[in-house]
């Protein structure tokens, strides 16, 4: 358990950054709110990768606990997001943010 990380720490930062970036692009580019929510999950998980890698590097379990809390928050957020999607769908019968014309901008 002691000793260095499997690979240099910078590689984890690179992996997490790429994942975060893909998530941001997903939110910006896609219109389907379900895919947008999934892209947000990607962003949160990218942060979790960083927390794990840094926790291991510093041997500080605060990073692991932070990641644990993030998973809890992500679960709550996904539940509420999906409930709102269902509620919008009920009143609009379409789930597409661009079709939402009454709110422009």
């Amino acid at each position, binding site marked *: 358990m002691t000793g260095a990380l499997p690979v240099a720490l910078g590689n984890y930062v690179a992996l997490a950054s790429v994942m975060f970036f893909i998530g941001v692009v997903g939110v910006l580019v896609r219109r389907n709110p379900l895919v947008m929510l999934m892209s947000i999950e*990607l962003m949160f998980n990218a942060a979790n990768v960083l927390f794990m890698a840094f926790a291991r590097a510093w041997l500080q379990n605060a990073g692991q606990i932070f990641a644990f809390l993030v998973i809890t928050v992500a679960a709550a957020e996904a539940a509420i997001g*999906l409930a709102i999607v*269902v509620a919008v769908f009920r009143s609009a019968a379409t789930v597409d943010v661009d079709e939402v014309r009454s709110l422009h901008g």
Partner: protein
Amino acid sequence: MIAFWIVGAIVVASAVWTVTARKPVYSVVGLLINFAALAALYLSLSAEFLAVIQIIVYSGAILILFLFVIALLSSGVAPFAQGPNRLPRIVVPAVAIVAVALVGLVAGINGAAILTPSVSPSGSPLGPVGSAGVFGSVADFGKALFTTHLLPFEVTALILMVAVIGVVMLAGDQTPYVGSSKQAARVERQAREAILRGGDR
């Protein structure tokens, strides 16, 4: 070390698939692969508990929730908007520029000393420090969760309460389905006509 590159490739490829897939169901599958690969990554970082939680909560609960909603909505009136939907021309060069900048930044970081050099983790006053032997074990994790980080842990109870009550109030009311009731009426009428015609439909 090779394991990291394999897992990393899977993580990136599945993330790209999640974002670009034409149907939301494929996106869910992409995300599932992504989360499984992340769990493997966590194992290699001696976060056993989190690896298990990642599988149980993310793959087992959150993604199933997504699947349920997709199934629920796909049976409705309008299908989902298909394809990579919105890609204004400005976005493409912007994405390229940011990607290049990101790679450059990460390369720069790889060269620089990342951890603050003059602060040694074990010597600094950072609160209880996990010793190397037990770091990442469930006991170590649980002890820190219920002592040092008790307050954040208690706050998650409130967050889950908000989620439960909020979802019940948002989606669990008795207001009739505007779109679906019309559809239900149409289906009912068609069925009635089919029966009247002789029942071969």
